[in-house]
């Protein structure tokens, strides 16, 4: 009994240490962001007079309002379409047992491991030839394709567990495949679809490589891509850069806190599947 109590305590101590280590970089960012703009503050040191206006300055200097709008547009372009395509394909591979599903599925699974850097060069020329460079489409369209391996993998995993009886009952009532899909399978798949939506939102919002290569104008990029440009521009003004970084990471973290339960299970399952 005594041994167990000691173990529980070491567990708590470990957990707290881990949390401290996770938070410290952000505490440092926050404290630094409150210093006089243009100075080099030393490590963790609370400023004599906190400059809260740095957040406002960074907000306007980085065109944060526009950035938020741009990121939302990109997410709205990527996520619903990806969900629809992945759900339909997952349904075909996992439930309709389409002919030749094995090679098709294997082709998608191989895409799970593909580093984005390995296709970014031809993607650049392809997007240029399509006349889409420097538009949000340059991020939206490739991301839909790049999300298909995971999306199809995820939705197939849901649909293979659906018993065939469900469709058979609908067939007896005269529903064709399209109707079965929309009236029965999509509603039943909502938990899987919404978890996938969370992951795709996150990966879109935080996408960096496609944003910096395919879009020059930071206000047409994702939040992460714009932060890269902001760093190039304000890299020497440490307090302002820190304030800007905090502003950029806040939206995703707030959304994470609101939907925490879903996020945690989606992230854990997501890595288990991927």
């Amino acid at each position, binding site marked *: 009994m005594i041994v167990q109590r000691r173990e*529980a305590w070491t567990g708590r101590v*470990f*957990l707290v240490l*881990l*949390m401290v*280590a*996770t*938070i410290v*970089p952000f505490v*440092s*960012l926050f404290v*630094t962001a409150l210093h006089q703009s243009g100075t*080099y*503050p*030393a*490590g963790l040191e609370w400023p004599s007079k906190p400059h809260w206006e740095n957040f406002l300055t960074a907000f306007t200097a980085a065109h944060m309002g526009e950035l938020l709008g741009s990121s939302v547009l990109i997410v709205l372009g990527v996520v619903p379409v990806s969900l629809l395509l*992945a759900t*339909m394909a997952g349904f*075909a*591979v996992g*439930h*309709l*047992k*389409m*002919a030749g599903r094995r090679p098709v599925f294997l082709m998608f699974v*191989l895409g799970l*491991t593909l580093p*984005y*850097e*390995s*296709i*970014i*060069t*031809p*993607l650049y*020329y392809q997007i240029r030839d399509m006349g889409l460079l420097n538009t949000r489409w340059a991020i939206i*369209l490739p991301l839909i*394709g790049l999300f*298909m*391996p995971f999306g199809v993998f995820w939705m197939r*995993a849901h649909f293979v567990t*659906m*018993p*065939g009886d469900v469709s058979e009952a609908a067939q007896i009532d005269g529903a064709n495949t*399209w109707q079965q899909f929309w009236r029965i399978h999509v509603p039943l798949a909502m938990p899987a679809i919404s978890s996938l939506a969370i992951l795709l939102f*996150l990966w879109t919002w935080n996408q*960096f490589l496609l944003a910096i290569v395919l879009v020059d104008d930071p206000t047409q990029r994702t939040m*992460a891509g714009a*932060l*890269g440009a902001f*760093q190039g521009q304000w890299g020497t003004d440490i307090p302002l850069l*820190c304030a800007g*970084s905090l502003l*950029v990471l806040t939206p995703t*973290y707030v959304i994470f*806190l609101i939907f925490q339960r879903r996020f*945690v299970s989606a*992230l*854990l399952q997501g890595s*288990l599947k991927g």
Partner: protein
Amino acid sequence: MTGATLTPSTERAGVRPGAAKATRRAPRRGQRWIAWLFAAPAIAAYALFVLAPMVRTVQYSFYQWDGIGPSPWVGFGNYVRVFTDPELSGTIVHAFELIVFFSGIPVLLGLAIAATIRRIATSRLAAVARAVLFIPQVIPLVAAGIAWSWLLSSDGLVNQLLSAIGLKGVTRAWLGDLGTALPSVGVIGAWVLLGLCTLLLLSGMSKIDPALYEAARLDGAGPLREFFSITLPNLRQEIGVCVTVTVIAALASFDIIYIATQGGPGNTTMVPGLEIYYRAFVERQVGVASALAVVLVVLVLVCVLPIQRLTREES
């Protein structure tokens, strides 16, 4: 894992209601066509924006091309350069060194931490921990890179702490020092991935039958024995996932390094992803960049496929 196999009962889903028993085969063929229609948009998007570029990468890798002018065929010349030019082959070496940090630290430390906190996995503290430990997973890696660049700078917190405990002699600009830049970048990666690995391993441990632990305790096993005899063998799959995810993160790292060091000082932190970016878009050596890109894909597959096989076979 929901890797359920096909069962005969679900195969029947393909039968249409109007089909007479005698002509069962025909409608099923129709159904198969419909299935392809459902899959077609996803296949098209994937083919257009992933498969086609991948084929073009392979194609580019055999030419010497500056992105604009003529492109002479050079055969495997670009590949020879990838392995003989120390600047290019060095990136691959760096990627493997990063695996030690990105993969080794999060998995080993994550195992130790998860095993220690297993007993309190359901307490309120654990709920708070989830909200905190997922921070690196939900924020842009770029933001993590900026936070750490500042932390590791010459005026940063790390040096401040070192000075405070009397180690002023070892303080330096960690990311700007030839000897410490790569390990420092590695530490950032370890920090990013540690929380995810810990929580993943914890959730795996929570699925282990508690009776096993009780039995071990009754037999007089200590925490160490318990860990090696019960926890570790039952976590095969989760460990496999952690290793897979972190190895890919190490080999394909880009965001953190782009922000923290841009490959410098010298080329000490240059990794394949960043090198591809520079060669293709700054130095206009599309052929060399593409050869490195193909090598990177092969490296990821060579590293990841055996891990998958090893951890799935006995489950």
